[in-house]
């Protein structure tokens, strides 16, 4: 079995043990399927592989745990979606994902997460709100060159909204913007 990690259109081979399998207009980054229990370390290991790749090429992460029998099966699974995945790569090229969650500390009144989301959306190419236990759980697709400005805006918002704890992480590969829409 091999694991499918990401879609890219960069022809440069990734560092071993990762390999590139051509699939129509795009290519699949594949690697050996890890064995054993999934723990936090395994998840971070996988993340760091992708972070090294995304520094140098446009890529779409593939859903964690996707495995197929061999290279032929990998190509067969991706080729039918080649055109839409190529278009999705254009959407994320040069951008990274930043995660923002806003938590209302116990005993505090809920802050205005709508204003936070509106301000940050204005600094992003695209945005996506997710369901979660917090009042705001969102992902923003931000130009690499704009990440510093985005983070500065998060700091300002934290000062303006004392009733919220704003948790900002990233930059991440564009997990939340990988599926064409």
């Amino acid at each position, binding site marked *: *079995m091999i694991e499918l990690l990401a879609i890219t259109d960069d022809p440069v081979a990734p560092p071993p043990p990762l390999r590139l399998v051509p699939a129509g207009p795009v290519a699949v980054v594949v690697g050996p399927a890890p064995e054993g229990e999934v723990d936090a370390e395994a*998840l971070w290991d996988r993340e760091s592989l992708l972070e090294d790749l995304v520094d140098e090429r446009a890529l*779409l992460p593939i*859903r*964690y745990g996707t495995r197929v029998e061999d290279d032929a099966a990998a190509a067969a*699974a991706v080729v039918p979606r080649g055109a839409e995945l190529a278009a999705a790569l254009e959407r994320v090229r040069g951008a990274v994902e930043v995660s923002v969650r806003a*938590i209302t500390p116990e005993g505090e009144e809920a802050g205005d997460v709508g204003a936070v989301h509106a301000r940050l959306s204005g600094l992003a190419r695209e945005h996506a709100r997710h369901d*979660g236990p917090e009042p705001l759980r969102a992902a923003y697709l931000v130009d690499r060159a704009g990440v510093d400005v985005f983070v500065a805006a998060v700091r300002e918002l934290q000062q303006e909204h004392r009733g919220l704890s704003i948790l900002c*992480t990233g930059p991440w590969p564009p997990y939340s913007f990988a599926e064409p829409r």
Partner: protein
Amino acid sequence: MSKTSQAIAEREVALVDLVDRLLGGGVVIAGEITLAVADVDLVHVSLRALVSSVEKARPQEP
């Protein structure tokens, strides 16, 4: 909070975001998804517990 426990809390905060992305994001491609649903639920449950503990542990800053 000490520097060390601050760093651990930050990594735990980021772990929530990582798991969210690995399990809920990315391109969905036909293939064998190896994570059993039961395992995923367990991960979610423990992370939600983690979110509330981080919240409580967080100092009154920045």
